[in-house]
């Protein structure tokens, strides 16, 4: 099976010491490796205000991870660990590989179209003036 990419965000209680957050990340990395997945990136957003109260708290310590794995067991295990952990208030896993694929496709499509357009403009120059005038205006 092809490799899937996930975004995993979790929010720790704002009073958690930095060391505990690192510990949570370390256990996740370990768990992912055990199940055959991989944590590609760790990005600590730090304390930020949440849009609504969670567990009667207004702030949270956000951590953003990029997880790659080829089967869903990894996500299951990571979410189980997050649920068990006392410091973690909230977490969200989003599968992103299909959206990234679509993004790539659209990007390639547009690049190809952009590459084709100048040639069309070059062939159109001997033809009617209003068309070329518009193109000149668009370029300017």
């Amino acid at each position, binding site marked *: 099976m092809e490799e899937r990419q996930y975004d995993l965000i979790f929010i720790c209680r704002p009073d958690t010491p930095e060391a505990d957050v690192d510990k949570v990340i370390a256990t996740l990395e370990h768990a992912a490796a055990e199940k055959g997945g991989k944590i590609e990136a760790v990005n600590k957003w730090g304390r930020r205000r949440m*849009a609504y109260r969670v567990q009667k708290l207004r702030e949270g310590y956000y951590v953003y991870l990029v997880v790659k794995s080829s089967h869903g067991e990894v996500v299951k295990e990571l979410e189980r660990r997050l649920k068990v952990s006392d410091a973690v208030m909230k977490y969200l896993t989003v599968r992103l590989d299909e959206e990234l694929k679509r993004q790539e496709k659209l990007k390639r499509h547009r690049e190809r179209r952009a590459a084709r357009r100048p040639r069309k403009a070059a062939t159109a120059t001997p033809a009617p003036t209003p068309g070329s005038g518009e193109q000149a205006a668009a370029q300017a």
Partner: protein
Amino acid sequence: MADENVPVQAPPSAPSGPSGPGGGPRPQGRAGGPAKRGKRSFVRKKKVCRFCVDKADFIDYKKAEILAPFIQERGKILPRRMTGTCARHQRWLTVAIKRAQNIALLPFAAEL
């Protein structure tokens, strides 16, 4: 639709048929009418999809500041007719907003 079709059909028939010279001027006059009427009644600034302007292929749910203009004060997602977002981008946008709500980047409903 019917009014637009008449002038298109008129030019080929004009040189061949005897009724050409008589029928010619009338379709032209009719074609001018609806266009003028349309201009007069609809003077409205056209809203453009912001994501199309930026040529966005992907709307990131993590960037709450991008999504914020598309929700109401109370947290509702604004409809397309308000923001001018195109159908495709609105579809992506709603998904992004809902994801952001789940991780407390955006509110479900404003707190009082």
